[in-house]
């Protein structure tokens, strides 16, 4: 099992887990500037672009049967 990472101490938490929470979680209350869902998707797309351009990752052809 992967070691427990206390959120408040370890600032190197995977960015994916962090964005998953700060952008998809938290209470949504009316502000003059609130990112829309489409904008959040764009951040995720950016994240994918960045990670796939840095890593030598294979295309996810084997995940078609149900990575969702």
């Amino acid at each position, binding site marked *: 099992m*992967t070691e427990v990472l206390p*959120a408040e101490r370890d600032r190197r938490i995977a960015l994916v887990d962090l964005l998953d929470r700060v952008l998809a979680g938290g209470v949504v*209350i009316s502000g003059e500037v609130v990112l829309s869902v489409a904008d959040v998707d764009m951040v995720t797309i*950016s994240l994918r672009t960045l990670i796939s351009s840095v890593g030598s990752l294979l295309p996810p052809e084997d995940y078609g049967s149900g990575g*969702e």
Partner: protein
Amino acid sequence: MSAEGGVWAYAVLHGDAAEDRVADLCGVADETVRVVASVDLAAAVGSVGLDEFGQDALRRNLEDLDWWAAKARAHDAVIAAIARSGPVIPVRMATVYRNDGRVRQLLQSRRDEFEVCLDRLTGRAEWGVKAFADPNLLAAHDTSAGSNPVGHRSGTAYLLRRRRELASHEAAYRVAASHAELIHTALLQQAVEGKRKPAPHPILSGTDAWTVLNGTYLVEEARADRFTAKIAELDQATDGITLEITGPWPPYSFTGDVVSP
């Protein structure tokens, strides 16, 4: 335009000792985090420039992942620090108001909901649990996939083999999915609440393994040890599945229903 300012919201908390709880915290714009109070509630906020945090600027920055990473960490750091001293309702990142008056108005109009939410979150924290399945390990249980009596030269043989591989792949996935369901059910018994979130895109998870569970759980602080022990136990007991735990997080995923204007 550069002189224009906005108010970035981090969290909602009880008014009691709110000043002490946000003392010395530094926010997304390196600003000092401060309190906007209304009766018995408070919001942790920071003054930010709309040249960097206004609607247009945020859109402009959307493609700048380093910017988002830094701001997400700063936003989370403030909320996590406040969470250490008591219950807190995290506010979704990038919620910016014109001025303190708007924040105060919001605290007043949503007071009952916030109070209920704070009560529900008191003494509890969020834990993330992901289950990764190793397709090869799970597929290895299915021995029929390995043999190929027809030989591998003919196209038909290739297609047959490929079909068997896919079938074995699907069988492996079904096994993994049922493991994930059992793990989620077992963890729910140790938690106040829990939910399954969509799995991140395989590219993001940075592994060949399937993410078959992306669960997150609200757990009593007093039961956190038992919760993590249960995860270790499930990890040991489930062949072909590796569990990864993150936390404790502020209760991002348990702030209740969306509060609309």
